[in-house]
């Protein structure tokens, strides 16, 4: 699928602008012709499997790696030409962020603040406030060596914020923390973005997390951005030709029912398969979910997928009941991020 460049909507000027960005390592293209615009105040999720080129892209945005081709503009500046100004305004938390272990949390924050030339009195206040905000006020004078993974990540957030950036880039911020920690961290990120008007770019391969807090996501596979937009619009992109799929679990399925359904206005295609023969590739999770209430007569249950150009659920159910079939379950298929992910990543790896 062709990536459609997202054009900045009225009023929102792009704060990060990538055009035809390329990075080559030897024979391999790590990033291949990336176009991306991120507006001010947005939370953008860069979603992709490991090795898709997410980190490379981020490093190029910070001027830590030189692009092979294309252009990068961050806050209207070229990071390769003005690295210091860009780094002053962009806070970056690498995946697996590290701290000086034999120094305290406060020392680590103060060091970052001093590198950003923040006067020490002000830095001290900021550090205290940020530690409070990320919930590490009590661990302020503890050595970072004794910190848990989640604490480190939260300290990482404080560390990113102490320079009072315009843009925050978080590389895999949720990696390796427990679900409760993840929720807390995401809530924190969202809060920060909304309260301070920060632009947040976060990369992840955890689609659910990205879905929770991102305004828009970009799917990044093999160095190419294959789709971007908000989650509903990605789902629409996935629904080819604007068709709707209605899934039914029917007991007592027969050919006559199939004919009736096929003759309903709007139905384009009827696909039926026995529940016991469902092959895992076509979404075993969905099938199992639909067939769940009918375990006792699973053998008799047929899963039917109606591909139609409008929602025909009520007509279909009426037709089945009138035709003598038993309607056990019915669901209009919604594309979640899971399907999107699966579908695009499959397409990406096969291409």
């Amino acid at each position, binding site marked *: 699928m062709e990536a459609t460049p997202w054009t900045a909507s009225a009023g929102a000027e792009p704060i990060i602008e990538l055009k035809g960005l390329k990075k080559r390592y030897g024979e391999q293209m790590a990033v291949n012709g990336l176009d991306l615009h991120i507006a001010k105040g947005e939370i953008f999720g860069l979603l992709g499997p490991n090795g898709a080129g997410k980190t490379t892209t981020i490093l190029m945005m910070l001027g*830590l*790696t030189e692009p092979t081709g294309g252009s990068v503009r961050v806050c209207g500046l070229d990071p390769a030409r003005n690295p210091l*100004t860009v780094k002053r305004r962009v806070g970056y*938390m*690498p995946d697996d*962020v*590290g*701290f*000086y272990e034999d120094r305290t949390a406060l020392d680590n924050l103060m060091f*970052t603040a001093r590198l950003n030339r923040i006067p020490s009195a002000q830095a001290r206040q900021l550090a205290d406030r940020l530690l409070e905000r990320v919930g590490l006020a009590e661990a302020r004078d503890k050595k970072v060596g004794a910190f848990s993974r989640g604490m480190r990540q939260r300290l990482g957030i404080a560390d990113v914020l102490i320079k009072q950036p315009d843009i925050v880039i978080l590389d895999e911020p949720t990696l390796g923390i427990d679900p409760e920690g993840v929720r807390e961290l995401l809530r924190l990120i969202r809060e920060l973005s909304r309260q301070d008007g920060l632009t947040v770019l976060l990369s992840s391969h955890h689609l659910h997390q990205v879905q929770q807090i991102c305004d828009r996501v970009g799917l990044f596979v093999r160095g190419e951005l294959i789709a971007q937009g908000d989650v509903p619009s990605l789902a629409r992109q996935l629904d080819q030709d604007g068709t709707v799929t209605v899934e039914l679990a029917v007991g007592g399925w027969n050919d006559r029912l199939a004919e009736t359904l096929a003759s309903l206005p709007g139905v384009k295609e009827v696909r039926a398969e026995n529940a016991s023969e469902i092959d895992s590739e076509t979404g075993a999770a969905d099938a199992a979910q639909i067939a769940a209430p009918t375990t006792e007569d699973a053998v008799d249950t047929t899963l039917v997928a109606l591909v139609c150009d409008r929602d025909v659920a009520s007509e279909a159910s009426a037709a089945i009941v009138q035709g003598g079939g038993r309607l056990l379950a019915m669901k209009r298929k919604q594309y979640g991020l899971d399907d999107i992910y699966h579908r695009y990543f499959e397409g990406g790896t096969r291409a």
Partner: protein
Amino acid sequence: MKDTAIGAARWRSWITGLRRGGKEASLSAAPGTPSPFWVIVQKEFGDHMRSWRFGILIGIIALACIGSIYAAVTALQSGVEAQATDTEYLFLQMFTASDGSLPTFATFVTFLGPLMGIALGFDAVNAERNKGTLGRLLSQPVYRDDFILAKFTASLLLIAVALYALGFLVMGLGLLTIGYPPTPEEFIRVALFLFVAVVYVGFWLNLSILFSIRFRQAATSALSGIALWLFFSIFYGMIVGLIEKATAPAETSALSILIRHAEQMLLLNRLSPSFLFTELTTTLLTPGVRSLGPLTTAQVVGAIASPLPLGQSILLCWPQLVGLLAATMICFGISYALFMRQEIRSRA
């Protein structure tokens, strides 16, 4: 008056602008805050001071130095009693004399100095990388070259402080035990010797920083550094000795051939930084040394056997000093080039 101040400020900003490729010279900074370079230097210096590693090293070196003073003092006392010692530069012999039980201070510095340099530099960059702090640090407004330069500067400062402290300690102890005050020239000679020692250790420091950039594992980089150190301190002299024997012309050869051979061997020896340092130490601490190369009898005829003045000693060893500085700078240049091209990824 005001004009000159403005002129100077403009001149300075022009120079920084030139260095930084323009534009960013006026990067907003609160007045009175140290530049990131000095912030890193301070932090590194503090880290070294607190580290066990430095404590152990300084312990070893201090013990060695105290031992060498003891050896020197006993040698001097017996020598003076036997009228065997030239009393003119008696104080300098604190650093070069020994009763044979322990090596001299100069030898200790030649041998242990590199170890100190290697110990302070071998994990300078790769430890940051492995701890995941490199990416975080370099995403702050810091130039990459400032980062390695700051690492180098901090360690070099520490080395300078340590060596000068030790040197002055030896001088003070010597003063107490032999009761013979140094002349200003002797003092300057010792200060210069310590400076040269800092340059020499600085070379090893730089080499180990280079290894720490090249090798991702701290152990590999430490071992490479130590291997080179052992090679130059022990094996290199042996190898040159072997080559010398193998290629030696017959004793009856013409003078020019003999001299050419001797000079070639000297050149080979001088490829080793520890040999350069030995030559420097000898010249600075033993004013009687008049030449570092072969001398013919014809050249010596008519010369008055007197010590060289300070200026002449410096002139004599100047090329060696420049050689050491050049080696240091080459190492730094290579480190710089390598580091600039390296990927900054955490723990990858």
